[in-house]
């Protein structure tokens, strides 16, 4: 069973290569089958008892000298999210014309690299895998090779290279101080250091690299260009916002495990979280392009996750991590919806989109569920995680800021509600939603609802955390939510 960990990394890359080399008529079917296997495997791993991390040394060489794969609860959880999202994306774009074998090969290899980041125990491995996934993502962004995507892809590549160069220099300092580079030994060795001030330089360099990867406040300007780019396929934006930005947050959590014993990180993460959340939605309100609103919104939500991670109460990090799952699903759903809306209306500006309720009730219902989730309505996934992010904070400053963030989120999504009303502007185009796309929408909407209503059971399954947020309390929150909306 422990050997199946290798499959998470190698199987998507193999699948991509097979799809590229053999080119039979049913190559996409192979991709979907492999995705299903991976989703099943990650669900199985989540259900095992992972309170202690399972370490699988490769070639039975012990850890400081060899490489190992480690899976603990956080890693299994992130892999479940990434495999599930990749599966849904591959099913969604089954019939699209940009699913050439080359695109699918790079897309699936990206999944293998992201899984590798979640499984590795060595910081240098993480650096290499993140660099290779940066290359894959920039190729996917500029896949259609027209002028806008070329600029966006190049900007993305350069900023991420500079960020990871800082990360690598910090790693060099860590190696100079300790001589080991894997998380297990570093977390044992760090408290033994006599001169704690020597850790300032490696920590600041590594933190700079990580905050560029997870798009925190001063370093997020690459994200709207990369995620909201005009001609990238919507599944690429969905994967980027849903999974790839979360690898930055995952790295932050791992670094927090290592450095947290020595450097007090809580206030730093909270401050960055608040700044990012407020900055994100302020910029999101000013946009008129549908994908750019969603991209700036991702910045704000990552800030919210960081507020959860830096909170004082022990339930706050659980809420933050749960929000990773919730955000991956509803942001992915919103990006897919944006792609379909751009196809239906032929324009990217929100002000010109009207009359969706007339055109298709199914799409409208999906959009309403997604927006209610993202703004934190009770019974939906967003509300569940936001309750736990704000749990136990009684101070007036925190409450004011948190309410401000919630209000700002809702304001930026009022524009989306306007899409529903009004008349459909031009005669009905021949656009029809295919079965696979409807299936994906239905599944994602259902999961958003399940994450909200049955949140306690889901949290116990994937996180091993016992949260108690029963239904009646959720119903009582509706009053607060509607009051804020009014």
């Amino acid at each position, binding site marked *: 069973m422990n050997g199946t960990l290798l499959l998470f990394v190698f199987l998507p890359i193999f699948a991509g290569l097979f799809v590229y080399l053999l080119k039979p008529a049913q190559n996409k079917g192979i991709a979907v089958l492999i995705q299903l296997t991976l989703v099943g495997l990650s669900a199985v791993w989540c259900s095992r008892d992972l309170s202690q991390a399972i370490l699988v040394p490769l070639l039975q060489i012990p850890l400081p000298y060899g490489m190992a794969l480690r899976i603990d609860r956080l890693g299994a959880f992130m892999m479940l999210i990434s495999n599930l999202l990749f599966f849904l994306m591959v099913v969604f774009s089954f019939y699209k014309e940009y699913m050439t074998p080359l695109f699918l090969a790079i897309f699936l290899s990206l999944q293998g690299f992201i899984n590798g980041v979640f499984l590795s125990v060595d910081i240098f491995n993480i650096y*290499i895998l993140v660099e*290779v996934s940066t290359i894959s993502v920039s190729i996917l962004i500029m896949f259609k090779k027209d002028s806008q995507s070329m600029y966006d892809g*190049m900007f993305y*590549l*350069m900023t991420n*290279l*500079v960020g990871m*160069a800082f990360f690598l*220099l910090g790693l060099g300092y860590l190696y100079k101080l300790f001589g080991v580079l894997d998380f297990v030994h570093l977390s044992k060795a760090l408290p033994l250091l006599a001169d704690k001030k020597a850790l300032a330089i490696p920590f600041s360099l590594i933190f700079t690299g990580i905050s560029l990867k997870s798009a925190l406040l001063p370093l997020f300007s690459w994200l709207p260009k990369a995620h909201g780019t005009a001609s990238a396929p919507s599944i690429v934006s969905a994967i980027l916002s849903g999974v790839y930005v979360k690898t930055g947050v995952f790295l932050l959590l791992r670094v927090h495990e290592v450095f947290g014993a020595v450097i007090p990180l809580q206030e730093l993460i909270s401050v960055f979280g608040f700044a990012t959340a407020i900055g994100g939605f302020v910029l999101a309100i000013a946009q008129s392009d549908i994908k750019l609103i969603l991209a700036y919104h991702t910045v704000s939500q990552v800030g919210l996750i960081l507020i959860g991670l830096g909170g004082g109460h022990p339930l706050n990090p659980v809420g933050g991590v749960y929000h990773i799952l919730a955000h991956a699903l509803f942001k992915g759903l919103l990006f897919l919806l944006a792609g379909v809306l751009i196809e239906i209306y032929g324009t990217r500006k929100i002000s010109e989109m009207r009359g969706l309720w007339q055109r298709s009730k199914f799409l409208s219902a999906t959009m309403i569920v997604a927006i209610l989730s993202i703004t934190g309505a009770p019974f939906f996934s967003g509300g569940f995680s936001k309750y736990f992010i704000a749990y136990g904070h009684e101070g007036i400053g925190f409450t004011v800021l948190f309410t401000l963030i919630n209000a700002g989120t809702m304001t930026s999504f009022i524009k989306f509600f306007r899409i529903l009303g009004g008349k459909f502007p031009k005669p009905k185009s021949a656009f029809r939603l295919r079965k696979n796309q409807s299936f994906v929408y239905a599944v994602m909407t259902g999961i958003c609802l399940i994450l909200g209503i049955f949140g306690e059971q889901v949290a116990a399954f994937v996180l091993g955390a016992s949260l108690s947020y029963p239904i009646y309390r959720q119903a009582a929150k509706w009053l607060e939510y509607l009051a804020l909306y009014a």
Partner: protein
Amino acid sequence: MIFESFVDGETISVVLFFIGVYGICARRNILKSIISIGIMQAAIILFFLSIKADPAAVPPIGANIADYARVADPVPQALMITAIVVGISVTALSLTMFVNLHHKYGSSNWNKVKRKRRDID
């Protein structure tokens, strides 16, 4: 004497790294940005290789390696070969993208390209 004790691999590599950072901040030519990223990567490679580097160290190859007092550390060398490979591939990719960008936008200046990109939207 004091000056010579400062000039070793690590300080030179940090100076070189920040020269690269200056280059990518302050230059408007896209090619100079690509070169600056290359300088940053070279600086990191120098840093890793000069961690506890000793001119009297012996390469870690051979059967009777235990007889020698100082043996060079093979771990940074192996890590840096990987880093060099990654550096080459990202330089190649960014150069290809730059050639495409130059053909589409007709300029190799960040500001002009950014203005044209904004006009397209």
